């Protein structure tokens, strides 16, 4: 696990010194993170890295996980889907199951932090235990267009918190409590983002029988309709009419997701239209994802909906030109024509892919700008700084805070 000083060569000593200045101001306060799982998923991934780093900086930080049975997690998955705008039938029984598990956790999980930091809807009802400590609710979900019945149910809890945190401005609503914008981040020292020797990149390409004899366009995403893999193939086929290139669609296995399997079938069918389309069903393998991104000439992220879209940050960090949909947190990462190209349609995506492939110098500049933008704004060190500022904001209500 990386130590805080390992980040100095990447972000500079002054950035780390600033983190230490803030940590000093939080001495004596105990921060308790609570979420629904210790492994798997983006929240656990970020907490696994953040908690040790905060402790190393001197911020006393603990992490607890709620308990819940199969039924509870089925309900929270349904909540997750409808918050993303998908239509599902939510019954009174679902709310009862949610509250039953919540009450169990309220009775059995100790909330001892001076600052209790609750992640996502699953543990949200713990707020009913609030005493005179400070509570933050961190929403990692795209709630720009939620199913109002579930949102209203969650609002009963949200308004009892001291502050809420969202990943993109479009997820914010008028709330009676303070709400902050804190984007997620990538860890430049993780397997997914660290520098790789050329031999490893070549080995991964060989493994998947990808020959670098023509430009590579890649989308890294699970096979999910919201990631629009079929649309990516269609855009690629339009490009292929004019520029000889190849397409890599790589993502996790969808064996436990019936809808995902259906999408994968459609993708496989569509891929028969061109022999240069590589469909890669990757197991969780960060080094391989890293290698594929680094081997690509252009990265595409043609999602129809995104929570934040960290694959964009990962690609930009590797100085790759990126064509991505203007949804969720993507426009925060890409300013159109400054650090990449944003698209709204299949035709737009195809046009922009052609632009990058035919103008390598332009593509290179976009990639370099993108890398700098990610370095300045979306690395783990920025995330740490903002979390510490968030903790401090609980004790200061003014817009200009002198520490």
């Amino acid at each position, binding site marked *: 696990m990386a130590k805080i000083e390992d980040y100095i060569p990447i972000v500079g000593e*002054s*950035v780390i*010194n*600033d983190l230490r*200045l*803030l940590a000093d*101001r939080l001495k004596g306060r105990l921060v308790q993170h609570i979420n629904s799982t210790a492994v798997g998923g983006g929240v656990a991934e970020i907490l696994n890295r953040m908690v040790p780093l905060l402790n190393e900086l001197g911020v006393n930080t603990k992490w607890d996980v709620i308990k819940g049975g199969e039924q509870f997690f089925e309900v929270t998955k349904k909540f997750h889907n409808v918050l993303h705008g998908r239509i599902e039938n939510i019954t009174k029984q679902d709310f009862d199951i949610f509250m039953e598990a919540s009450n169990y956790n309220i009775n059995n999980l100790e909330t001892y932090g001076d600052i209790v930091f609750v992640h996502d809807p699953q543990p949200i009802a713990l707020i009913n235990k609030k005493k005179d400590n400070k509570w933050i609710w961190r929403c990692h979900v795209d709630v*720009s267009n939620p199913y109002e019945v579930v949102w209203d149910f969650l609002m009963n809890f949200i308004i009892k918190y001291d502050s809420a945190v*969202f990943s993109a*401005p*479009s997820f*914010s*609503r*008028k*709330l009676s409590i*303070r*709400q*902050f*914008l*804190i984007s997620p981040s990538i860890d430049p020292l993780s397997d997914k983002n660290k520098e790789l020797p050329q031999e490893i990149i070549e080995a991964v390409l060989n493994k998947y029988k990808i020959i670098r004899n023509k430009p590579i366009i890649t989308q890294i995403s699970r096979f999910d309709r919201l990631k629009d893999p079929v649309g990516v193939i269609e855009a690629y086929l339009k490009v292929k009419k004019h520029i000889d290139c190849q397409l890599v669609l790589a993502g996790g296995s969808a064996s436990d997701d019936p809808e995902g399997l259906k999408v994968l079938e459609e993708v496989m069918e569509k891929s028969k239209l061109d022999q240069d389309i590589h469909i890669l069903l990757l197991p969780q393998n960060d080094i391989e994802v890293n290698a594929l991104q680094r081997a690509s000439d252009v990265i595409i992220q043609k999602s129809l909906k995104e929570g934040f879209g960290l694959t964009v940050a990962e690609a930009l960090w590797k100085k790759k030109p990126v064509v991505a949909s*203007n*949804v969720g947190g993507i*426009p925060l990462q890409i*300013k*159109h024509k*400054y650090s990449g190209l944003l698209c*709204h349609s299949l035709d737009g995506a195809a046009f922009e892919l052609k632009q990058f492939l035919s103008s390598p110098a332009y593509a290179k500049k976009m990639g370099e*700008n993108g890398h*700098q*933008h990610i370095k*300045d*704004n979306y690395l783990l060190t920025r995330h740490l*700084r*903002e979390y510490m*500022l*968030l903790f*401090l*904001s609980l004790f200061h209500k003014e*817009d*200009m*805070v*002198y*520490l």
Partner: protein
Amino acid sequence: MTEVIKAKEPFRFYTRMHLSELTGLKASNLIQLLELIKRVPGSCIYHHTHRFLQQHQYLSPEPPNDFAYWVTEILGEDELGEKLASIDTVEYTSIHALRQAISITIEGYLEENILAKLRFARSGEEFYFIKSISFIVPTSFVVYDLNSFEEVLKKITMDSIYFHIFEARLRLERKNNDFSNWLENSLGRVKLANEISKLDPYTRTLDGLKNKILELINIYK
């Protein structure tokens, strides 16, 4: 060897870190944008006229403010975008005055271009108003003369330079940047102070600005 002049008062370098507070307020067209610009807290106006400068410092010179960017890229009103981007922020010494300049620019444009009222942003591409919350922290760097000032300036963070040049002048309404204030009033370096004062920091990268100040110090040392 020239004698080192000691300042009447030392200069302490501060650094500034910021957090973005969401307001839940959004605009879909120019009328809504104008109405909200007139009534949102000053910290919102500050955020949207300075965020780009910090987040995209490598793209300068002439980084657009958020209003100009949105009006151009989302509403497609290039002419208004250009007018907003060219508002000379350095001419204003208060957020109140800057807010007025932005409002007057949009009002004037709407009077001449009635059809502009009919342009709406797509869903999800609205202008979201955000407040900038600043946390100001003293650093350990305190200097008494020009040489030490120069040495610290070389190694201090961009956040610190940002605070003393932009935030102090406009947001804290000190009328001038902190460096010029100190150089003139505590060190008696009037010419150097004036030269730094005259710089338009909005047309440079933060790094370029730092180098320019160091260059001026060398000339006037």
